[in-house]
């Protein structure tokens, strides 16, 4: 007995009233903690901590082109994370956004390869984006069907469908959609001009001249606003929130559990698919077998980091994009190995989660 007690000398106790102030400030504090740990790590590796921190946090945003890259990276991440937040609020564990993003890219490509280049750009791009959203939504509807019809856990099926999506992508780009003039590379032909997302510089925003920034950032902001209204003021949003918080109360209200599951998965899948379409029609301009979006998984982090609220997710997506680009810069500026990038992201996440834990719990010494 006494041996066990001395091993567990500390315990976590839930705080009765987590401080609101602390819960708001914790992401900022996490940045400070990350910067401190990063600085210490740079010093240990024999590099200047200040140069490192500058490269990590400031260098990505000290020029228009830098900011443009952060925004380009943050937009699809934000779209995907907002979609996931809807599923998570419904207590539906969609962890397969990566696959839904890929399907979105495939859907958009299906339109892009088959639409005549005489079609007006706005119509063509709208069609491609809608096709992407539909493909992502349908891909996520598959787990909804399995869950509601056979009771199969969606955590498993959404994840496994990611690998199916990767195979589908590889088959399409090496088979039916391979560019005949592409020197046998596993990729489609480049899309026509009417199929690429307009760049802000081409739309007369001179501050963005020379950058790759396209209108995807607007989509992300629009998605955040619409989702916020949808979740707080629409009957379906209310139904999803209620189903997520208390299934019993949802039954009492008269909401069917399967409708909520279908809606949560289809909507989150559609937003992920939309993000994939934006990526393919934007920065990529073609579909490639080696395309690994990655943010399908990072979006899970972004969604929870943003406390599943659309407005905060915009901020968390920006933060994650900044750290992602910043750590690549660190790698180059200090000549550090590429593992530094993953390491820094890990440190950031751990500090955020650790601080969140301390907001909700206190550490107590067992007497």
């Amino acid at each position: 007995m006494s041996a066990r007690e001395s091993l567990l000398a500390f315990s976590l106790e839930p705080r009765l009233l987590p401080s609101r102030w602390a819960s708001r400030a914790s992401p900022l504090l996490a940045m400070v903690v990350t910067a401190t740990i990063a600085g210490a790590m740079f010093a240990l590796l024999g590099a200047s901590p200040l140069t490192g921190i500058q490269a990590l946090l400031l260098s990505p945003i000290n020029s228009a082109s830098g900011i443009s890259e952060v925004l380009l990276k943050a937009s699809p991440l934000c779209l995907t994370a907002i979609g996931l937040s809807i599923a998570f609020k419904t207590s539906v564990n969609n962890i397969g956004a990566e696959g839904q993003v890929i399907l979105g890219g495939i859907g958009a490509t299906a339109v892009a390869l088959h639409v005549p280049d005489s079609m007006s750009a706005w119509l063509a791009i709208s069609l491609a984006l809608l096709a992407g959203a539909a493909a992502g939504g349908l891909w996520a509807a598959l787990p909804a069907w399995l869950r509601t019809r056979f009771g199969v856990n969606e955590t498993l099926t959404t994840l496994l469908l990611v690998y199916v999506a990767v195979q589908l992508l590889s088959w399409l780009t090496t088979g039916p959609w391979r560019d005949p003039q592409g020197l046998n590379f596993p990729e489609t032909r480049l899309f026509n001009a009417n199929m690429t997302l307009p760049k802000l510089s081409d739309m007369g925003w001179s501050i963005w001249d020379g950058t790759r920034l396209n209108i995807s950032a607007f989509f992300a902001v629009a998605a955040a606003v619409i989702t916020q209204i949808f979740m707080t003021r629409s009957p379906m949003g209310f139904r999803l929130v209620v189903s997520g918080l208390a299934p019993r109360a949802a039954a009492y209200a008269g909401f069917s559990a399967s409708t909520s599951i279908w809606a949560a998965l289809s909507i989150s899948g559609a937003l992920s698919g939309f993000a994939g379409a934006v990526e393919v029609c934007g920065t990529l301009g073609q579909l490639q077998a080696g395309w690994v979006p990655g943010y399908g998984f990072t979006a899970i982090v972004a969604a929870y980091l943003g406390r599943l609220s659309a407005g905060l997710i915009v901020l968390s997506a920006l933060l994650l994009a900044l750290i992602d680009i910043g750590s690549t810069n660190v790698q180059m500026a200090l000549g550090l190995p590429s593992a530094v990038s993953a390491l820094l992201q890990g440190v950031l996440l751990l500090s955020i989660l650790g601080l969140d834990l301390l907001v909700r719990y206190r550490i107590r010494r067992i007497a």
Partner: protein
Amino acid sequence: MNRPLIELINVTKRYPGTIANDKVSMRVMPGAIHAVIGENGAGKSTLMKIIHGSVQPDEGQIIWKGREINFAPPQHMHALGIGMVFQHFALFEALSVLDNIHLSMPKEVARGETGNRAKAMAKRYGLMLRLDAVVGDLSVGERQQVEIIRCLLADPQLIIFDEPTAVLPPHAIDGLFQTIRSLAAEGRSVLYISHKLAEIKSLCHSATVLRGGQLVADVAIEDTPEQELAVLMTGRALPSYEHLPRTMGPVKLKVDRLSSEPRSHQEVQLNGVSFEVRAGEILGIAGVSGSGQQELFDHLSGERPSPRDDAVRIADTPVGRLSVLGRRQAGVAYVPEERHGHGAIPDLALDQNYLLSQFGTSTSWFNAMGLLKVESLRAAAQGCLRDFMVKAPDCSVTAGALSGGNLQKFIVGREFSKKPEVLLVSQPTWGVDIASSMFIRRSLVEIAASGCAIVVSSEDMDELLQICDRLVVMANGRTSPVVAAGNMDPLRLGLWMAGMFDDQSEPEVEVA
């Protein structure tokens, strides 16, 4: 004269505001199967926890084999030879049966040795035991057998069974009784806690009857007819209340031979439930909790639709197969027993909780764009707070921040605001302070006077007698005949609560 195995003398346990056990004395002879009978809240559980050692009494003595023991912790009582089979099993679902048993063995016993002993024990008492099965895959009956074997491996002299049949399907009960009888035949004593009189009559030798924390009687089962046990258990003369005359209108709710298919062992099967309620009338459902009340309300509210459409009729329209929304449209409103997570969501604000039960009603809370009319919702929720005297700063506070009484007043007000034809209320004042309870009861009577038909289920007999016009008793998923509240007497109530209303050809007594 034999010496009792255990004897309790004037054991008293007080909790703030209540006395759980008031000078209770009891003796159990070796080899006896001794029942402890009482309604919910009679003090049975506290008394058993005192014997088991997990609760320390404030006064009194416990004599074990003629020697007084000073209220010792469970490990000590365990070592003396007292074991308990709990109603809620303490098993690790992800582990195998053997691992679960092995965890409770002394450290020096090897795992293989545990297996051998458990096997021998199972064989001796005719229990089924699959040592390598994972507990999560076992039926409730099998899990109980694992618990029993785990308890028996400590070779206890006294074994406490806490309502062991509450969780068992009927076919598993016979086996359990055989096991208990063979334990007694070996000279071990058994304390059997229950409120099911038929079981006690067939299994036990003697009984201690508790009521309201006090010892009512010590009886030999042989010499005591079941009816007498029932009267002892429910006891006291029922109080009578004056009712203001209300005019009764046409039948608003008619339940006709409603039956159900249980989805799990824990669910009670409804069997031919029938009654009707008129406009302006309050029908009370009495009975020990877990007799099918929850299942009945699920089927009345539409959370569980019935196979037969005419099993439930609202104002003569069959609604049995309709969902919650359809029934709400037909005029059903419902105050569930559980406020947190069923009738309301603690994490949501009161106005959102107001919206919770508004879907399907004629009022639309959404504008032409499909967006919530925030202002009118707030005004309605605020009106509910005012009319039902809910103490809350405004409707933006979360439901979880309200006391039980205030939240219950809010829910009753919310349901009443829909001007329902039929109001279903489960445990209206469970966990509610006295002032709010009085307010809620008065409100229910006023709501009935406005022409609503009300069904109230409660375990508080006083409450039912105070507000109801007629009463029906539920037991084992069936309903008794319906009687006028004034015509209920303790003897009949006790019998009906024990499920004995089959051979009673009581004519239905209507109120004028």
